[in-house]
């Protein structure tokens, strides 16, 4: 009887020991739902590649806490209706340890209640003001535009004021991101005394913008603030060049998603000249740093093979930075506890290839570094020209400026 007890005890101890080792050898799972099809997939594919590059790099360094890192990614099809289901699966079926938000505001907004309810750490991925209402204390956005519309629309509209603008037209996609941005833009325009002469939301998937362009030209604004998605941004640039926005317009652009993506830049070429648009990175000297240059060189090799955005300026460095932030927090705290990790990220500077990042109370960058850049001197459809300085001149903010804003008509010549 004693032998049986001893054997049972030994087996139980062995099971615990080996079970523990097995658990210790389980990879750390990082989950994400990200657009691989649909309107945001151009950015989503590039972003996912950057995250995979981080996973490869961190695993080459031995992983985190002695465990390999595994990335579990699902295609959210740029469909906000799908993201709650995807994140529930990541949490309850895949049992991921860490979460990264989908790319973009619209797919992220529906998962915020779920994340808040379960009190989880969520690394934001280029969404805008998505935590403004919910105020989840474990949300940290990788996007450099900061909280509220002031950091975004403010710099654009100030550039308009510099050009002597007195009136403004708004055209925005009827969707969460564009609406958030335009709401802020309207408030700032009012505050700085710009007269709103045209204000229209267009339904997503509008085919032809000629009619809207004619109506804007008829309203004679000095500034046209455009908040659009990739599918429409290219069509709007074309319509502006074909129909014209009128001689009064000194500044046009602001919040056009897509004009940062290589295929669109390549296809539009010189039609982009004169447009002023937000960006997270352009190859100007004030944004240059060795980390990002080294990353882009590696990214370029893989991007060509995987048929994703060959420039990779906009999202990839910032997605790689998400991985770096998680790596720094997990390594420093030696923990996967979301509260511990969130406390660490909130209190410490995150060192990434896009520079040091400190977060404010709502998890946005305490010191925003989004730039407004004006396309100038773009000739032909050669993509290589965009790798050189001077094609996207930074006109704001002042700390990163590489040139003064020029009126639209002058800059497009």
């Amino acid at each position, binding site marked *: 009887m004693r032998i049986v007890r001893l054997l049972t005890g030994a087996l139980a101890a062995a099971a615990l020991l080996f079970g523990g080792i097995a658990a210790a050898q389980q990879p750390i799972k990082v989950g994400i739902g990200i657009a691989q099809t649909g309107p945001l997939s151009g950015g989503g594919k590039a972003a996912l590649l950057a995250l995979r590059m981080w996973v490869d790099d961190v695993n080459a360094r031995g992983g985190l806490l002695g465990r390999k890192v595994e990335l579990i990614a699902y295609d959210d099809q740029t469909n906000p209706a799908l993201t709650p289901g995807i994140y529930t699966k990541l949490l309850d079926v895949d049992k991921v340890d860490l979460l990264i938000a989908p790319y973009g505001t619209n797919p992220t907004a529906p998962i915020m209640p779920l994340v808040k309810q379960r009190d989880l750490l969520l690394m934001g991925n280029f969404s805008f003001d998505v935590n403004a209402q919910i105020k989840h204390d474990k949300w940290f956005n990788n996007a450099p535009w900061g909280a509220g519309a002031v950091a975004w629309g403010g710099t654009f509209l100030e550039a308009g004021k510099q050009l002597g603008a007195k009136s403004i037209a708004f055209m925005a996609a009827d969707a969460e991101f564009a609406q958030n941005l335009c709401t802020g833009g309207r408030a700032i325009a009012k505050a700085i005394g710009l007269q709103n002469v045209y204000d229209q939301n267009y339904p997503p998937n509008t085919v032809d913008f000629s009619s*809207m362009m004619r109506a804007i030209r008829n309203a004679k604004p000095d500034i046209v603030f455009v908040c659009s998605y990739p599918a429409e941004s290219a069509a709007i640039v074309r319509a502006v060049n074909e129909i014209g926005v009128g001689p009064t317009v000194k500044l046009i652009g602001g919040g056009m998603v897509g004009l940062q993506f290589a295929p669109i830049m390549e296809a539009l070429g010189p039609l982009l000249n004169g447009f002023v648009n937000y960006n997270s990175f352009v190859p100007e000297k004030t944004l240059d740093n060795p980390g990002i240059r080294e990353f882009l060189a590696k990214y370029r090799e893989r991007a060509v093979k995987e048929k994703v955005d060959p420039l990779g300026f906009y999202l990839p460095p910032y997605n790689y930075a998400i991985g770096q932030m998680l790596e720094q927090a997990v390594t420093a705290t030696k923990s996967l506890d979301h509260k511990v990790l969130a406390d660490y990220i909130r209190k410490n500077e995150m060192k990434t290839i896009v520079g040091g990042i400190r977060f404010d109370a709502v998890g946005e960058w305490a010191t925003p570094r989004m730039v407004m850049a004006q396309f100038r001197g773009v000739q032909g459809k050669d993509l290589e020209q965009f790798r050189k300085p001077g094609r996207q001149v930074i006109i704001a903010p002042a700390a990163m400026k590489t040139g003064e804003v020029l009126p639209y008509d002058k800059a497009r010549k």
Partner: protein
Amino acid sequence: MDLQLLFEATVSGVMLGCFYAAVSLGLSIAFGLLDVPHIAHPAFLVLGAFGAYLLGGYGLDPLVAGLLLMPVFFVFGLAVYQFYYATFERRGTDTGLRGLAFFFGVAFIVEIGLILAFGVDQRMVEAPYIGHSLELGEMRVPYRMLVAFGMALVLMGLLTAFLSRTFTGRAIKAVAQDEGALRLMGVDPVRVKRFAFGLATAVAAIAGALLIIVGPVDPGLGRIYIGRTFCVVVLAGLGSIPGTVVAGLILGVAESLVLTTAGAAWAPAVAFGILLAVLAVRPAGLFGR
């Protein structure tokens, strides 16, 4: 309201309407005449657009590329219909629902195939008439929309003449009216339908070229055009080619006027509101019998 602006909006609407008609003509044959629930039609348009993009890489004008693709698409259409007929239409009475599932599947396969081949990014083509406009006084009309306008009229003329003046065309109309009667006259309706489906797919090739001339195209764009093309075909009265152009014009002009004057967000509501109103008065559509 500025009359000049209103006039320009109407002209713009006519161009847009003809483009809508051009991308709906293939569906008008497949769904309107053949009663095939061809939900993959917009995916075929996108396939045609990527074909034009691919050939554009060799320096071919997108319109020429579209014309060159027509025979290839015709054969592709024959094959798709034959497969659909053998596996679905011949077997059951619930062909509508099963056909929908089949064509949904085809649309997904086309979309994923394009993603694998070209990636997910938007693609555009170059041509002398893209990015420039015709200036008539203060009014500017983009050449790309003029091309769509002209091609829609040419397609309508050719299809109307083919369907009313040739033996095969009249056989297609006959199969739409009474398949059984055609069989009794010794004609194989399946053969006629296969040919007509091939024709519809060939038209999708040139319409796909127009799609990429008018705007950027990505592999998922077809989903957006499902509602629009079916709306045009139903409003026209199933199977009417001139009706398809008139329906396209109504939707295009309404959309353009609403975008210019009342508020852009209302454009789809007005377009589908017109569809509902017309169907309430004429359930068979504008030109339906």
